[in-house]
């Protein structure tokens, strides 16, 4: 019998190896859906973004009104805009679920895939930050001002570096145009990094909830996980459409309906919800450079996970105490998100500082508890 075309054709055999004949563990749960959901989110953001870019103008005098023009005059512009804004929120929901799955089940032991994953997380965060500036509302301008000013904390080169990024002495037109350029560019770098991320995963095969070698019980990706992924797409698209059509500005800031005014500082400058936990960590340190380092480390600390994992078992499935600690970490991140949205007043300041210490402590206490649990059961 001749080989089927999906296995012999130079292009199709790559797709075949990725989504048809790929051996997948039979026991991977819904938490394994978020990888494909992230791919869907990226496609949604790129497609809606491409169409928005056809009508958007990146100039300080025109940006705000071009967004209003899109929402009012462009055919289905209102839908493109709200899908793109809410699509970003869903992107981060999926990112955090996907990363959380990786932390819980020890998927980070796939070192290459994990490192590329952290790079993708940072790139998507940068893309979202750049994109939020583009409508040129009050929060766009002042959020950009706050975050870009952080770079001035870097010793020696800080001030020059910030002015180089700004293209001037403050956030202005030069900043807006280059932010648009990079916001357009980065998603394609994310797409390339995603392909590399998948390449590394396919070297080893997927992890599974038990954290053990699954070669004895593999099923083909198609039809099981093609259809499971499609089910996941339907669920996520339903949620996205519900939010976009019923309450499109629920997750937004009312201040961004006011055109940017460098002479009027909003009472409460805050980023979008998905950055609030990091914002809280940044504000917890009274020193500017210290806060910046803490902000960066709050994400980069994910990279130490593969090196601190000294447990006998890969996944937390068999470690009830560590499961409790994991969910405490999730609760801490939720509380940090709340604190990030609150003003810098008592008792929020101390609460944020305690939560920051607790957040970083997890990465030390968790491996120690794993080792202790293993010793105790020996």
């Amino acid at each position, binding site marked *: 019998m001749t080989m089927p075309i999906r296995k012999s054709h130079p292009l199709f055999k790559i797709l075949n190896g990725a989504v048809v004949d790929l051996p997948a563990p039979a026991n991977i749960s819904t938490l394994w859906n978020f990888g494909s959901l992230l791919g869907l989110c990226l496609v949604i953001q790129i497609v809606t973004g491409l169409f928005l870019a056809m009508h958007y103008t990146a100039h300080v005098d025109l940006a705000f009104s071009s967004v209003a023009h899109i929402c009012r005059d462009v055919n289905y512009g209102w839908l493109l805009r709200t899908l793109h804004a809410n699509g970003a929120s869903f992107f981060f929901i999926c990112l955090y679920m996907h990363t959380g799955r990786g932390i819980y089940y020890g998927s980070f032991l796939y070192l290459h895939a994990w490192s590329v994953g952290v790079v993708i997380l940072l790139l998507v965060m940068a893309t979202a930050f750049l994109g939020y500036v583009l409508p040129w509302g009050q929060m766009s301008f002042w959020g950009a001002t706050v975050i870009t000013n952080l770079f001035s904390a870097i010793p020696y080169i800080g001030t020059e570096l910030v002015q180089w990024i700004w293209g001037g002495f403050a956030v202005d037109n030069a900043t807006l145009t280059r932010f648009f350029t990079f916001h357009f560019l980065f998603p394609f770098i994310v797409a390339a990094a995603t392909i590399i991320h998948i390449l590394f995963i*396919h070297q080893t095969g997927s992890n599974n909830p038990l954290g053990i070698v699954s070669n004895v019980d593999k099923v083909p990706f198609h039809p099981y996980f093609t259809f499971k992924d499609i089910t996941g797409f339907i669920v996520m698209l339903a949620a996205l459409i519900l939010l976009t059509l019923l309450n499109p500005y629920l997750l937004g800031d009312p201040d961004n309906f006011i055109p940017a005014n460098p002479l009027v500082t909003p009472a409460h400058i805050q980023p979008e919800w998905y950055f609030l936990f990091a914002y809280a960590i940044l504000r917890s340190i009274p020193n500017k450079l210290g806060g910046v380092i803490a902000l960066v480390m709050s994400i980069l600390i994910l990279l130490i996970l593969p090196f601190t994992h000294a447990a006998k078992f890969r996944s937390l499935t068999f470690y009830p105490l560590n499961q409790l600690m994991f*969910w405490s970490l999730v609760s801490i991140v939720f509380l940090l998100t709340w604190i990030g949205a609150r003003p810098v007043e*008592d008792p929020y300041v101390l609460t944020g500082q305690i939560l920051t210490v607790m957040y970083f402590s997890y990465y030390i206490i968790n491996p120690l508890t794993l080792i202790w649990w293993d010793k105790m059961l020996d």
Partner: protein
Amino acid sequence: MGKGFGELAHVRGIIKYSLSPFEQRAFAGAIKYGVPNLFRRFRGQVLRVAPPFIIGYMVYQTVEGRHTQLMRKNPTDFENDE
């Protein structure tokens, strides 16, 4: 690329029997066994998942309450007012 079918693992002495998917009901026992199983799985996890969120909510409530109090004038300063 990673191991493909046919070279995954050496398994000897295990015989598996299964029915064709066309010879069985797809959702057999989904409610009769599935729903009690849902409760079993919930009971097994709830004591590890819920406590951090319950404590988290209590922290939130306490801190928000304290902030509200700090935003108010001190009632004892006006006790002797007529």
